[in-house]
């Protein structure tokens, strides 16, 4: 699957998509392929304030448990409710329906530590 170029990527395999001052966070296809089937995903509650590099949730697969990090500062405003009903959505559509959470960004400078799609793809070829 191609890596979408409308967002940027952290070293810990989260994608960050900024629209206005709202940031949507998710995991890359590469990351979910490494995790294998996701069995559980839980993000911090809406209202939680986040600093760059904070853990904002956990994702569990049949193989391992992984922390989810966010590169920017802000406040969580929404968590994807589909994750609770069917965590497998992360495997089937990580760049779309399987998004993790949305933040209202207060400081986006952390995005500078992320890379663009082409660089991410080059670094993490299958």
């Amino acid at each position: 699957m191609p890596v979408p170029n409308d967002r940027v990527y952290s070293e810990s395999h989260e994608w960050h998509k900024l629209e206005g001052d709202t940031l949507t966070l998710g995991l890359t296809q590469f990351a979910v392929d490494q995790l294998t089937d996701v069995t559980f995903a839980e993000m911090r509650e809406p209202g939680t304030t986040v600093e760059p590099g904070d853990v904002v949730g956990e994702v569990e697969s049949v193989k391992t448990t992984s922390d989810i990090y966010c590169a920017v500062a802000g406040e969580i405003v929404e968590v994807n409710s589909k994750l609770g009903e069917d965590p497998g959505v992360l495997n089937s559509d990580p760049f779309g329906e399987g998004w993790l959470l949305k933040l209202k960004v207060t400081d986006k400078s952390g995005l500078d530590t992320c890379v663009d799609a082409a660089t991410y793809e080059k670094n993490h070829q299958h």
Partner: protein
Amino acid sequence: MHKSPLRSFHADHGAQMVEYAGWEMPLRYPAGVLAEHHQVRNSGGIFDVSHMGRVEFKGRHARRLLERLCTRRVYDMQEGQARYSLVCNEQGGVKDDVLVYRMDDDKFMLVVNAANREKLLKHFEEVRAAGDLSCSIDDQTLKTAMVAIQGPKVMDLISRVSSEIPNLKRYRFTVKNLMIVKLIVSRTGYTGEDGVEVILPANAIGMALKLLMKDIDPNADDALIKPAGLAARDSLRTEAGMPLYGHELGEEINALSCGINFAINMDKADEERGEAFIGLEALQKTQGEGGSARTLVGLKLDGKRSPRQGHAVYAGDQQIGEVTSGCLSPTLGYPIAMAMVAREHAEPGRTLSVDIGRVRLEGETVPLPFYKAPKKS
């Protein structure tokens, strides 16, 4: 790194390969671990287990050597019988768990864990030399392949090519000649399902798979068997309560604490043709002290999280043990774990909890296995 003789099969089926015990092996296929798991429980799966060590013991003293190495008696095994046993160290810890195949009076095959193969080969030779026993020890791992075909519908498939194999009892095997190829087919496995494990020459596996999978489209929803990887093998064996070296078994873990005392014949040395096995003295001492301090239990937990090896197990506020293996059981839908706990907390029905990091999972001790295949009508 060793490559499996089935590597082109894995590539053809889009496997994600990982390193495991010095081998490049399939972790999973594109359908995913959960799909593979359910496929094995509901129909059938084929696993490459070529990384497992296969060692032939042949000679006048082959049986006596195995009596010394194995915790289980060997002398009463019949030709065509396979038996699960432990190999212990002098301290009563577990060097490995193995399957012993009796080929004939003076010939045996041992199937051992990949991670322990080289360690065991050295151990086998040392014990042979110390006893001045006449027995050749031949590591056949690299020139053979091994597959496990497991699931409730596997025997239906096999009955198309053999009338003998579906009539084999559990833990029995037969040696079949397929054209010029010799296959060892045993009714054994590591998933809790019915099925077989097959050992055959490495250069014949391609042909054998073609024959077996001839009319099967593994992409069809209702395919009788589909490839399954190491990840599904692990969740399946965990549900079946089967121990794994490095988790429930280890050099530092007393063999009497592993919940598999059926595989330890403490009175073997007193029997007419029996012989003391390595580790017996230490285990007798353990027994004399009232048993091992810790014991393996099953835990059934609440929620949808996954307990993992190393997570602490609590009775109230007191830590009483650790998880050795765990997962969110794909078949049962709740978290399960095997754990080594202080003996006094081992009986079924005890309320315990597992600290998985930021939260504790509540639950209780349950008998193993967690899952048992329904008897076929």
